[in-house]
């Protein structure tokens, strides 16, 4: 059962990677004056301060962590 899940997960990851590569290939140069939408504070790709505690509790309550701007170590999370 686990191997089926793992294979599905792998297939989905490969599909996503391929789609991402296609997107990268189709990207175009955007001039500074064309970046008013990209520069909107809500468009930021970095972690948002107000979500910090959410990311912490998720890393404690779930087996997986990382790749989301949250913590991957340090501090107990004992409870």
């Amino acid at each position, binding site marked *: 059962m*686990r191997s089926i*899940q*793992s294979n599905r*997960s792998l297939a*989905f*990851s490969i599909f*996503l990677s391929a789609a*991402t590569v296609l*997107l*990268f290939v*189709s*990207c*175009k*140069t*955007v001039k*500074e004056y*064309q*970046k008013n*939408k*990209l520069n*909107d*504070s*809500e*468009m*930021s*790709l970095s972690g*948002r*301060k*107000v*979500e*910090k*505690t*959410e990311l*912490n*509790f*998720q890393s*404690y*309550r*779930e*087996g*997986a*962590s*990382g*790749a*989301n701007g949250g913590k*991957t*170590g*340090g*501090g*107990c999370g*004992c*409870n």
Partner: protein
Amino acid sequence: MKKLFLSVIGMYVMMLASFSQTTKPDSSYKSRKLTFEEANFVSSYYRQDGNNAAVTGGIGSEKLTDLSNSIDLKFIKYDRHDRKHSFTGELGIDHYTSASSDKIDPATISSASHADTRFYPSIGYTVENENKGTTVGAGLSSSTEFDYQSFGTNLSFSKKTNNKSGELTIKAQVYLDQLKLIYPVELRQGGGNNMNYGSDNRNTFSGSVSWSQIINERFQLMLEGELVYQSGYLGLPFHRVYFNDGSVHIENLPSSRLKIPLGLRANYFLGDKIILRTWYRNYHDDWGINSNALQLETVVKLGSFFSVTPFYRFYQQSAADQFAVYKIHTAADDFYTSNYDLSKFNSNFYGAGFRMAPPKGVFKLQHLNSLELRYGHYQKTNGMNSDIISLGLKFK
């Protein structure tokens, strides 16, 4: 007359053009002195409940509350080469109460943290060379609570592409932790009065690589891969495990763990009022946990300075090889835990956020740049549920 008119217009346009060509960014606006850039205050209240506490072997109350407050300050200065130096400092304080921790020693309140306070200060420094598109950074952090001490350090390097559409970031982090070995009262050598706790170490080494890319005027995404290696005492000494013969033991987990999370974040500006934010992560580790997480957020702009953001996050994971429920493990098992955070489950997390950032300041307080309020409800398929509400204030 018509020729003269056109000539005058032409000269005017040429003058405008020549002025616009000679106008360069005025570096005199960049302060050589250390100046205050911004401060952020985040306060959160978290509560959870459930019936699978690890302290009591996978049964018992998981009730917990946590009040978290943090403030960070950022100062910047430019040097004579126009490099931007940023200095950040953060102080966080959490206060939590935990019903299950009180069961480490039910007769007294000597437990590790039936209620405890955690302090976590950190400092950071980055140098950004805007001409070269590079940023180099370093940071130090610590986290202190009654039974746990952690020190962390990190280094980072970023490089933008020549057309500034892409950026590569490499980051390395190390956490050196030490925990007190506080065992359940019935398993302490010397009985419940023995307060001479031993200690053990837990080390975390993490390396991450991310690539962010502008696809077009409305679309950007980021790919992130991370490799995390942990070693040392990776269980917790007060997590009980009940074997099928009724005997009680302390959780025993392998002394190393390799985690590989891969993340993709994509943000798209739809029309003029809606931003779609998505995040996906695939995760694998050598304890047998495979996981997928997907988060969708829709920012709806209610005006130029107000927005509402409903969000939904789905998460699923397989169980760790070492996990079994109450009274299933046997003496033949090398490793054992009944911590349901390592069990197989799905979870749903949903809620909404509200943000306001009026140009004259929130509530007309000039320096209060923005206010964010966010609420979320979290539900695992094994019954554990929680709520979190967060307030974020930015001062500039």
